[in-house]
């Protein structure tokens, strides 16, 4: 049973200001994704952010206090209480006042009565955009793609106007702007409703059949697209993208289409679009985070930027899983300045060095044994 821990109480340090923290985070991001952030530097900024969030994020503070944690007895970033992602559904986990909240990202999922809510303002959106670009550029458009001219961007999501609360769409819009592509690169919500319409939309976006394509989309959109290609007789040979094209897939299925394991999805992308496995990248992100993780198709190991850390937690012992062991994925994201930097996800992974292999969603408390969930 949990008893009072033997703790060393330090004088409560002053909570740093948002502006001061943003400057430090942006400075860390500006060093790039290849720069390894030493643990001491990460720790110092993480603890400063914890003090800030403990002071201004009331629901998080209550949560920390229920665990007997505060800036007085948290001396290392690993000790910062991680908030479960489901808590974002139940409370406004933000340091922003209602007037400061200009944007809110919601979790996706068709069956959720109450989505997660992650609030932003101009400053934190700037952090979000600053954090996403170096990893995207380094993992998706690396090498020859960094300077590629005449490449065509196609995005298999709704537009920002159609999905203003989607963090993924906001990310895609940021990528579009950074690559100076026109707004028409989005296929839009209507096309995503129907596989054949989606196939037609993708074909219409590819203006030049000889210049390579950068195709970004959710896993469910790809599956819907491939199902349509299979059933359309005239498109039996697939929708071959020009040589040198690249694909980034992200996100789960959330019950919107049949589920396809990642390896199989990548094989389908290769077969249907003519894109080699070496040119396929997976992204892992969620609305509760401000940074993303990427894995090359062949490796299956996701890595994040230097301003993040990942811990795989053994659910039985609440201790860190060893190399090669399964655990629940806990992410520390320093770009999450206005919410909580420590996020306990519901996803299971296997620890691989400083990255993780994603296995999928942890089982929920469903009706099992003699229990039965009653819809009330």
């Amino acid at each position, binding site marked *: 049973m949990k008893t009072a821990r033997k703790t060393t109480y330090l004088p409560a340090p002053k909570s740093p200001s948002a502006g001061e923290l943003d400057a430090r985070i942006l400075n860390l991001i500006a060093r790039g994704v290849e720069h390894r952030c030493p643990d001491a530097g990460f720790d110092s900024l993480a603890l400063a952010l914890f003090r800030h969030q403990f002071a201004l994020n009331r629901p998080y503070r209550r*949560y920390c206090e229920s665990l007997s944690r505060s800036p007085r007895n948290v001396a290392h970033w690993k000790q910062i209480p991680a908030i479960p992602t489901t808590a974002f559904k139940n409370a406004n986990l933000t340091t922003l006042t209602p007037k400061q909240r200009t944007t809110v990202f919601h979790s996706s999922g068709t069956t959720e009565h109450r989505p997660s809510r992650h609030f932003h303002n101009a400053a934190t959106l700037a952090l979000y955009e600053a954090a996403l670009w170096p990893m995207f550029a380094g993992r998706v458009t690396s090498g020859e793609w960094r300077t590629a001219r005449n490449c065509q961007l196609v995005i298999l999501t709704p537009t920002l106007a159609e999905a203003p609360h989607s963090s993924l769409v906001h990310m895609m819009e940021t990528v579009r702007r950074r690559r100076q592509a026109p707004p028409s690169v989005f296929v839009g919500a209507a096309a995503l409703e129907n596989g054949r319409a989606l196939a037609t939309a993708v074909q219409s976006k590819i203006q030049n059949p000889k210049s390579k394509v950068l195709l970004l989309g959710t896993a469910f959109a790809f599956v819907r697209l491939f199902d349509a290609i299979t059933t359309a007789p005239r498109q039996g040979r697939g929708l071959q993208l020009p040589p040198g094209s690249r694909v980034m897939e992200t996100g789960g299925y959330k019950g919107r289409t049949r589920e396809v394991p990642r390896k199989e999805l990548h094989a389908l992308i290769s077969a249907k679009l003519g894109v080699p496995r070496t040119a396929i990248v997976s992204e892992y992100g969620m609305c509760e985070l401000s940074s993303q993780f990427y894995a090359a198709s062949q490796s299956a190991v996701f890595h994040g930027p230097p301003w993040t850390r990942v811990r795989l937690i053994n659910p039985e012992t609440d201790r860190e899983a060893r190399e090669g062991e399964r655990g629940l994925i806990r992410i520390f994201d320093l770009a999450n300045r206005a919410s909580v930097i420590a996020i306990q996800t519901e996803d*299971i992974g296997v620890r691989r060095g400083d990255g993780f292999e994603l296995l999928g969603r942890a089982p929920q408390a469903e009706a099992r044994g003699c229990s*039965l969930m009653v819809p009330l």
Partner: protein
Amino acid sequence: MTTGQTIATTARLWLKRGNPWMARAKREVTAFSPQMVEMGLRELFEDIAANVEELERREAPRITSHGSRITVSHVLSGNLPNPGVVSIIIGLLAGARNVVKPATGDPVPALFIESLAAVDAKLAGRVTLTANREAYQKANVVVAYGDDVTLAVLRAKTKASFFDFGHRNSIGAVNLCHSAIRHPQSAIVAAARDVSMWDQQGCMSPQCFYIKGDAAAFAEALAHEMERFDRRWPRATLSFGDAAAIAHVRNEWSFRGRVWDSNGSTHWTVVLDKRGGWAPSPLNRFVFVRPIELLTPKLAKQLPLSTVGFAGFSLKEVMGMAQADRYCSLDEMQRPSLLLTNGSRPRVGDLIV
């Protein structure tokens, strides 16, 4: 010897110190800790030894020679060993031939038949174990335990008389007000026992206690008692998925309510929820505590209840709160008597009719 006397003698063998069947059950049952297996089976066979002859006497008017001509198929679930043993006993008392399909990895039915053979080989010969999932199709009567989907499939495929026992929940109701309860600490010890027995895997295991009085104090005291119980009768080692389910629900409720839990393990969890109505427990000794006001008539009507355990309330009061198959004192929730005639098993005479 009558069938009842033979079974009572067999049960007494299980209660003898150093008997080989209990030793093997402790070794071979992997779903529970050896300590839990020993205590649970000991209680089961104590009840059988005490009551099986009385059950035979009570059912005698309904037992006819027709019983010896029927075949009862028992399709058992793996969550608990007890219902399977009791089901076989009821089939034997009816005089029937019994074909038993145990759950994969559950050695207890086989051990029970082996011990019965040591007393009366002829009676034990009336029971056949099978791994054939379709064996029930040749029976006159099917008694099936398991999840609702499995039971629906079985029901659709058989033309035999069908007795099925699927998902249900159990709850406790405790009145802690001074004048209502004489020994509140005893009620708390009993509540901890009811949750923890058989790692909360049975449908008679409470998933929530509704409290009149100080629910927070009850929750805290319950946590202490569950820890004490766990030290003596540890919970089983869980799969990653089951542990992850508990971790997930703990995380969620540590934000929405107040949580007491085993430190460095998922062995037991008590959640105080002052706002919700019902939420499924991930089981494995995970229980909610709520104020009695949250047990609304609407909720009580919608919950398929197996057992309501109570303390400090009268039976009439509890029956007014929730309709269930069984009402009992706290401490008895996981000890259904062999003489129990409602809800959790068929009666001997039912098989023959």
